[in-house]
């Protein structure tokens, strides 16, 4: 008999309850049980960063976290980045700089880039590139992504 695990967690500020199997990932839980399909699956082995979310404020690959491990934790996904007033500046800058093509890697990049700017509001290019080394993009060549993050940092500095 398969017994499912009951998980109580908070996703983007909302309390959520779900049932999952022991080997199911947090990524599966978000997409298949909670219907939050903004987080994408790329490699499933922690190499590409497409499934990046925040777990208790720390950047993780949701494919390498079990759904059961989200018990009692706070998860932030791409769906939690924009607020009622509109897009977050990082999202806006990705659009302005055309820092995406196919878009599969974009949610992971935006969650990771926002986490960087929350921690370090004025990163240099090298810091941005190393921080985002765990997010792979096969379309853009990264340059537009780095420029979008630099521009977002500047805009945040001016608005604060």
């Amino acid at each position, binding site marked *: 008999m*398969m*017994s499912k*695990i009951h998980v109580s967690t908070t996703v983007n500020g909302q309390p959520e309850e779900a049932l999952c*199997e*022991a*080997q199911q*990932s947090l990524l599966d839980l978000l997409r298949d049980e909670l219907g939050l399909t903004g987080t994408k699956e790329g490699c*499933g*082995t*922690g*190499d590409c*960063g497409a499934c*990046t979310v925040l*777990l208790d404020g*720390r*950047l*993780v*690959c949701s*494919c*390498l*976290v*079990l759904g*059961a*491990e989200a*018990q009692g934790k706070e998860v932030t996904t791409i769906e939690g980045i924009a607020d009622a007033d509109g897009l977050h500046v990082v999202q806006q800058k990705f659009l302005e700089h055309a820092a995406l093509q196919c878009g599969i890697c974009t949610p992971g990049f935006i969650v*990771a880039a926002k*986490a960087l700017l929350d921690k370090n509001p004025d990163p240099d290019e090298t810091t941005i590139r*190393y*921080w*985002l*080394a*765990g*997010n792979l993009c096969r379309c853009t060549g990264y340059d537009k992504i780095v420029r979008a993050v630099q521009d977002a940092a500047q805009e945040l500095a001016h608005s604060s």
Partner: protein
Amino acid sequence: MSTYAYVAPTSIDEVLSVLANAAGNGERTQLLAGGTDVIVQMRSFDNEPRLLVDVKHLAETNEVNIGDEEIFIGAAIPSGVLNESDELKSLLPGLLESADLIGSTQIQGRASIGGNLCNSSPAGDTIPALIANSAVCVIATRSGNREVPVEDFLTGVGTNCMSAEEFLVGMKIRRPPPRTGDAYLRFIPRTEMDIAVAGAGVSVTFDGDGVCTRARVSIGAVAPTALLVPEAAQALVGTKVDDGDLRAAEAACSEAASPITDKRGTVEYRRHVVGVLCRRAGAIAKERALS
């Protein structure tokens, strides 16, 4: 077991009884810390159902204690968390750098030094740095904790001395005395996010006259397990760890290595590079000890 199961015990005793019960029932268990190796392995070459025992919910595996004599690092603490401690970084810069070399920001949010050790890969980057720092594994057993030096913990590629009824609580490291420095260097063909072709960890202690009184050298990715190289340490003790002394340690590391040829490098290449890494890491460790 026909399906996977998951438990998250909250005490050492509880983990031990879960492991003992499973062993008694012939069930396979899998200790889980950050999961950055375990979950990948579960999805690829080893998908046999088992009981996942999450060891992240214990006070002991999450503890960092910096004492006058000894430093304790809990087995489940993510490397990203460790690297936010300025005190640890100043005491054990080489060890913290070895952890910082592993994986992306996302991986470092989960991956632990204890997990790197229990995964027991020949190329685990933190392992030579732990051995260089004389780290000792604290292993919980039914009859109390037992302590095993890291170099004796490893028994082969992906294997270690723990039984299925034991688990790693953390690592004890002698607090570095004054005029001690450590360093770890690895070679990879790119700048980031890769597995070591070869690696070397060095710790050196000097007296007030700048003479080396104690040295530990360990090499990685050039044998089935990371190795302690006493001959390299002997080449440094009693010297000022100048270039000629470091070249003798380099030769000892190349001699001690027994690498394989694979897609990451040949036997000859690894044997050479591991010596060079020892020499360069030794120079950094010396600079740290004397600054």
